C-alpha cells in the first residue's frame, strides 16, 4: 500500500509539499482564532451595552425627590381630637399638607395656582403623615418638619435638570417650575434614597410604586416551583437512569422529556389555565398556580440535568457497592446520589433562574393583574418581578421608565446571584477521586 508513495516521492519532495501547504494552514488557523475572538467580543459588547443602558436608565429610581415641609398637626384641620384607628382613618391629612404648602408659597392665590401648588407633593404624602401620627400620638396639635415625597412630575423634572439646564418640564407649568427651583436652591427639595421602591407594592403613582409585592410574589412562586420540581425531577431522573429498563417505552419517555423542554412557555400557561384554574378551580393570580405552571416548565430541565449528573458517576462505584451486596436503593442513595448531587443542584438552580425570569405563562393565569398588596401566602393574589417589569414598561408616566430599568436591575442581580451560587455550590460539593 505504502510502496507506491515511497518510490515516487523522495523525502525532499515530501517535505517540500508539506512546506507549501504550511502557510495556508497557518492562515486558516489565524482566521479561525480571530473569528472566535470576534464572536466573544460581540457577546461581551452586547452585555456591556445592555448593562450600561439599564444601569444608566435605572439608577435614578433608587433616589426620589422629597420636599421638606413644616407640618402643623392642627386638630381643627384634621377634624379629630384624639388619635385612634377610627379617627385616623378619616382625618384630613391632605388639608394639613395644603395648609403648610400655602404657608410656604403664599403667592399662590387663584384656584388654578393652588391646584398647581398642591400637586408638588405626592398624593401618597397624607399616608406618610398618618403613619407618623399613629406612631407618635403626642404629635397631635404640634408642628414638625417632615420630608414628604414629591410628585412624580416634580421628580422627573428635578432629575432631568442633571442632564440639561432647561430640564424636561412636561406637564409642569412655568410657575411650578419656578417654585421647584426655589425649593431646590433653599435645600428644601432634595433627592433622598428611595426606600419606597423596596417597601411598597405596585401603584399607579410612580413615586409610590415599589417592587416588594412582586419580589415576595416571585419568592412564593419559586418556593412552590422548587418544592415540587426538584423532588419530582430528581425522582424521575433516578428512576429513568437507575431502574428503568432500556426499551421502547423509556426511549419514548426520554424523547418526550426532551420535547417538553422545547415547548414554548406560553403553552404551559394555557395548560395551567385550563387545568389548575378552570378544572381544579384554584385561585387566579396566585403564586400556587404560578408555581405549578413553572414546575411543569422547569421539570424537563431538572430531569435532563439530573440524568446527566447521574450518568457522570463512574460505573465502577456502582459495581463496587453492588458487589458488596448493597441493594439498588442503597447503591443509589449511599454512593450515586452524593456524587451526582452537585450536578443536580446546578441544574435545579439554573431551572429556578429560568423560572424566575419567566413571564409569558404567568400572564395566562392572571398574575398580570394590578396588585398593590404584598401577598401573605401562596394563595393570595400576587404578581412576580418580570410581570411587574412588563406592567411598568406599559405605563405612560415618564417616571416609570427608570423604575422599569431599576426593577430589571433587581431581577438581573437575583439571576446573577443564583447562577453564581450554582457555580459555587458545584465547586464546593464536587468530590474528587
Amino acid at each position, binding site marked *: 500500500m505504502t510502496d507506491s508513495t515511497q518510490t515516487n516521492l523522495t523525502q525532499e519532495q515530501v517535505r517540500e509539499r508539506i512546506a507549501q501547504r504550511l502557510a495556508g494552514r497557518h492562515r486558516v488557523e489565524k482566521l479561525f482564532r480571530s473569528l472566535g475572538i470576534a464572536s466573544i467580543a460581540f457577546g461581551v459588547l452586547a452585555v456591556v451595552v445592555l448593562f450600561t443602558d439599564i444601569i444608566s436608565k435605572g439608577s435614578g429610581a433608587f433616589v426620589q425627590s422629597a420636599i421638606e415641609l413644616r407640618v402643623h398637626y392642627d386638630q381643627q384641620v384634621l377634624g379629630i381630637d384624639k388619635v385612634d384607628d377610627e379617627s385616623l382613618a378619616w382625618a384630613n391629612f391632605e388639608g394639613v399638607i395644603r395648609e403648610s404648602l400655602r404657608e410656604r408659597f403664599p403667592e399662590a392665590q387663584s384656584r388654578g395656582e393652588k391646584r398647581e401648588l398642591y400637586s408638588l407633593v405626592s398624593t401618597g404624602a397624607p399616608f406618610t403623615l398618618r403613619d407618623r401620627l399613629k406612631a407618635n400620638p403626642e404629635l397631635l396639635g404640634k408642628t414638625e418638619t417632615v420630608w414628604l415625597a414629591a410628585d412624580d412630575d416634580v421628580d422627573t423634572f428635578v432629575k432631568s435638570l442633571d442632564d440639561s439646564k432647561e430640564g424636561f418640564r412636561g406637564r409642569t407649568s412655568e410657575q411650578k417650575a419656578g417654585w421647584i427651583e426655589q425649593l431646590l436652591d433653599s435645600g428644601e427639595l432634595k433627592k433622598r434614597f428611595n426606600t419606597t421602591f423596596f417597601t411598597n407594592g405596585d401603584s399607579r403613582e410612580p413615586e409610590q410604586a415599589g417592587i416588594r409585592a412582586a419580589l415576595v410574589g416571585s419568592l412564593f412562586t419559586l418556593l412552590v416551583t422548587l418544592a415540587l420540581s426538584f423532588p419530582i425531577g430528581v425522582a424521575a431522573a433516578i428512576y429513568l437512569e437507575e431502574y428503568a*429498563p432500556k426499551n421502547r417505552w423509556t426511549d419514548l419517555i426520554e424523547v418526550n422529556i426532551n420535547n417538553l423542554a422545547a415547548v414554548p412557555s406560553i403553552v404551559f400557561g394555557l395548560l395551567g389555565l385550563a387545568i389548575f384554574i378552570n378544572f381544579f378551580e384554584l385561585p387566579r393570580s396566585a403564586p400556587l398556580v404560578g408555581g405549578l405552571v413553572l414546575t411543569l416548565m422547569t421539570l424537563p430541565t431538572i430531569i435532563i440535568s439530573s440524568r446527566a449528573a447521574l450518568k457522570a458517576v463512574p460505573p465502577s*462505584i456502582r459495581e463496587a457497592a453492588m458487589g*458488596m451486596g448493597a441493594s439498588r436503593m442503597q447503591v443509589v442513595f449511599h454512593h450515586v446520589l452524593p*456524587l451526582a448531587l452537585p450536578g443536580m443542584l446546578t441544574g435545579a438552580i439554573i431551572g429556578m433562574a429560568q423560572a424566575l425570569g419567566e413571564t409569558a405563562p404567568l400572564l395566562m393565569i392572571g398574575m398580570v393583574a394590578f396588585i398593590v398588596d404584598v401577598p401573605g401566602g401562596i394563595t393570595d393574589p400576587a404578581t412576580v418581578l418580570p410581570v411587574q417589569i412588563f406592567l411598568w414598561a406599559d405605563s405612560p408616566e415618564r417616571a416609570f421608565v427608570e423604575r422599569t430599568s431599576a426593577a430589571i436591575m433587581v431581577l438581573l442581580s437575583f439571576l446573577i446571584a443564583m447562577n453564581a451560587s450554582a457555580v459555587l455550590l458545584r465547586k464546593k460539593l464536587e468530590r474528587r477521586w
Partner: protein
Amino acid sequence: MNTMTLDAAADTPTSGKAGPAQPQAVEKESVNTRTKVRETVGKPFCDNAKLRMRNVNVFYGETQAIHDVGLDIGRNEVVAMIGPSGCGKSTFLRCLNRMNDTIEGCRVEGEFTLDDEPIYGPRVDVVPLRARVGMVFQKPNPFPKSIYDNVAYGPKIHGIANRRAELDEIVEDSLRRAGLWSEVKDRLDKPGTGLSGGQQQRLCIARAIAVSPEVILMDEPCSALDPIATARIEELIDELRKNYTIAIVTHSMQQAARVSQRTAYFHLGHLVEVNDTETVFTNPQHELTEAYITGRFG
C-alpha cells in the same frame, strides 16, 4: 499488550516464532471444526466443591459469550481462569455473584450452586448472595469516602456490627488480613481514594472480606498495579486461601502459576482445559492450552 486473537496470530507471519505459518493455519481450521463438540479436558469437577457450575451458557443479546461450561471450585482453593481477551473468563466470573444481572441484554443459563444452594432462581435474593460471594474488580474502586467507611460499609448495610466497638474490630481485622493495617492505621479518616494503586486494591480486598464472605471473586486484580504491589497482592491471595475460596481471572500466566491450585483455560467462550496448575503449565493436555501457554497466541 499481547492480546491478539488466534485469527490475528495466524494472519501475522512475524508471530510464527514457534513454528512456520503454514501449520498454524491448518491448526486454526481444525480447532474451529472441533469447537462445536468440544469437551473440557482435564479435571473440571472435584468432590469437595464450594461452587458448582453445570451447562453454563451466557448470551449478550444474540451473541453467545459462553458455551456449555461446567466447572467446580473447591473449598479453600484458588482457581485461576486464564485465556485470551474476549474468551469469556470475566463474564463467567461475574455470573458467580450475579453481577451480570445488571447488564442490559445479558442472559445466563445453567445450574449454579453455592454449597448446593442455587445461585439463580426466582426465590434467590442477590443481596445475601453477594455478601457470601465478594468481588474485587480490575481497577481499584474504593468509594470516595474515608478508609474506615470503605471497610465499614459492608458490615453497616448488612447490619453485621451492633456496636461501634464491634465495627472498629471488624475494620481493623479486615485491614490486617488485607495487609494494610500498619500502613493506614493512623489515617483511617483520610479518603480511600488518596492511597496508592496497590493500597487501594488491598483496601478493596479488605472491604470485600469485611462481610466475611465464603468466596472471593477477583477479576484481574493486579492488571492496574506495578510489580511490587502485584507481589503483595499475590502473597495476600495465598494467605486468604486459608479462610476463603477464591476464583481469580488473570491475564498473567505467571500469576496463575504462582497463586492457584487449579487453572482453567478458556478459549472463545469454551472451557478448554482444567487441571492442577502445575499440570497445565508443564504438561498441557490440549493443544490450544499448549499454544496459549507457550505464547503462540494470546
